[in-house]
């Protein structure tokens, strides 16, 4: 019986094909470093949040200390996207009563420090403030200024770690390291659900690389058939035992806000 040897051309083709398949298939993962994968996923997650235009929302913060005593903060937010730059955000404080009417304007930038102004209604004074205060507490809560600002991909280096289940979701776990020296963190571990790339959980490590805080995000709702927004976010400080819960309500997209509503002049008339 003659054994049919493979036609040399066929054999070559098979090898080329196999090489092609190999190159285009698993090798894409193998060739892509953990850093490249991390950046790709983080960029994708950020891209999915873009294009919403503007929004307004109400935020209630419940601060809880170790003994379980609670106090609340109420803030209204307005956010607008700016093409080719970071978002602009206006925070207006309603509670506690002594800071009622205080407003805080942030012009976020991707590759340079943010611009921030504070409006003090008792003095009618607009004060430019330093954006170095990233690690400071926001209104006495467990959230720092940097925890509440939009996560711009350019402000971190990323690394893909692993895939694993997280609650009801299947998650991708990334490590991100802040580039800013003003950041209070050495690194953060981020759990993103694989389907929608929503942030499900973040673990924050302080400058001594101790696990300082954990943020858990829940009660997602989808707006404009596209944008996922959290209903509750809980931040627990493992060193102090204190925690803060954010309750987001009254999300409105596509309002008639424009960039003129995010200027120093607008800051002074904000109620």
């Amino acid at each position, binding site marked *: 019986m003659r054994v049919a040897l493979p036609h040399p051309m066929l054999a070559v083709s098979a090898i080329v094909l196999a090489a092609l398949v190999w190159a285009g298939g698993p090798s894409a993962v193998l060739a892509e470093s953990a850093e490249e994968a991390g950046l790709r996923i983080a960029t994708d997650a950020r891209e999915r949040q873009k294009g919403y235009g503007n929004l307004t929302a109400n935020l209630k913060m419940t*601060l809880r*200390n170790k003994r379980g005593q609670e*106090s*609340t903060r109420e803030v209204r937010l307005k956010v607008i996207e700016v093409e080719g730059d970071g978002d602009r955000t206006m925070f207006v404080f309603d*509670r*506690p*009563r*002594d*800071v*009622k*009417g205080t407003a805080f304007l942030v012009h976020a930038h991707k590759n*340079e*420090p943010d*611009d921030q102004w504070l409006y003090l209604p008792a*003095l*009618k*004074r*607009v*004060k*430019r*403030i*330093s*954006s*170095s*205060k990233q*690690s*400071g*507490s926001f*209104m*006495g809560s467990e959230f720092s200024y940097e925890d509440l600002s939009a996560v711009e991909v350019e402000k971190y280096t990323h690394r893909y770690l692993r895939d694993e289940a997280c609650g009801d979701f299947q998650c991708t776990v990334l490590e991100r390291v802040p580039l800013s020296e*003003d950041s*209070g963190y050495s690194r953060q571990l981020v759990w993103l659900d694989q389907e929608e790339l929503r942030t499900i959980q973040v673990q924050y490590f302080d400058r001594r690389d101790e696990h300082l805080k954990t943020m858990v995000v829940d009660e997602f709702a989808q707006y404009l058939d596209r944008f996922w927004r959290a209903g509750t976010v809980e931040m627990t400080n493992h060193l102090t035992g204190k925690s803060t819960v954010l309750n987001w309500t009254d999300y409105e997209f596509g309002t008639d806000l*424009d*960039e*003129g509503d995010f*200027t*120093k*002049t*607008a800051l002074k*008339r904000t*109620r």
Partner: protein
Amino acid sequence: MKLLGQIGAARLTLLAALLSLLISVPMATGARADDGFVEFVEVTGRLSSETRVYPETAAHPDQRSHASGFAAEATVYMEDNEGRSITITPFLRYDAGDPDRTHADLREAFLLLYGDIGDDEWELRLGVDRVFWGVVESRPLVDIVNQTDLVEDPDEKTKMGQPMVHLTWSGDWGALELFGLTGHRERTFPGRHGRLRPGPVVDRDLTSYESSAGEWHLDLAARYTGSFGPVDIGLSVFDGTSREPTLLPTLAGTELVLAPYYEQITQLGLDTQLTTGPWLLKLEAIHRAGAQNRRLDRFLQYEEEDYAAFVAGAEYTIYAVWDSDADLSLIGEWARDGRGRWATNAFENDVLLAARLGLNDEQSTEFTLSVLESLDYSSRVLNAEFKRRLSDSWSLHVQSYAYVGIDEDDAMYDVRRDSFIGVNLDYNF
């Protein structure tokens, strides 16, 4: 004069009535109404009880050693469905020790309109309003639109309402503001029984103006503000009735009193801040023409002297100081007035050094210590402040001033024995 007094009393009663009405509105906070014009109504405000103790024997006769009383301020804000709004804020202070410190003021009563002009925006404020200009901490230098409500606080930072037309045009290039101001407000001064006053009492019945139009002179002002990366800049010009009166020694009967006299002045102002990392670098400078200095000539008249003045300084903040959540801000400012010893204020050549510790805790606890040191005299003013929120509505503010080694030639000589400690308990609603 008597008529003026009656108008004053009537205004006080009217404002007090308005205020009590506002406060008694059963917490219409944030109420939405569907009837026509008003879509949103909000009432907010503060009731404040105050006690001040002056431990040193008074320098002038009849002065009390304490002041106690209360202040009330309420704001009603009404907005229609197109964003047009009306804001009304009456204020009332009652002081048991000094009848002249008991006063009412309409802090705000204005209509606000705004809209787009292409990519830019316009805003119009019509009525009584307050406007703040400036960046430094030691003294309000550039700030000139509103009169100082001096009896409220010796730091001159509390301002009275001012009738105005205020038009703003803003875009990504900055903002240009134009002001038409009339109905000049007189500066308040402590009365005979009050502390923190000149030796002779200021008699506001003897107020006079350089302009024949008196308080109804039309003052004009313009201001440009812009932000360029880390730099915020403000340029301003004011032409009209001075907010700072010259106090002319006058005989009223047999008593020597001081008569406020308001000149016509022109002031150019610059205020700028560079914000870089933890550093804030600040500068305010003015040139004022038409005002009088503190030098009496041989006819017992003050000299007119054009002058320049500036405050330059820096603020440096250490975040998460001592490995805590607290921020520590260190402030250094140098204030200079070109008139030197004939300056009409205490900032002829002074340095302010201050430290402010913000704990960033749930109660927003804040401590401030400062010293204002005269470089020309031996005078020194120490200030210590403590602020803390007690609950959602209540907050505490303790403040103490100490006047140390005040030189006889210093403009502050009259208040040399007026060191005090004050405790304010505020209810915010």
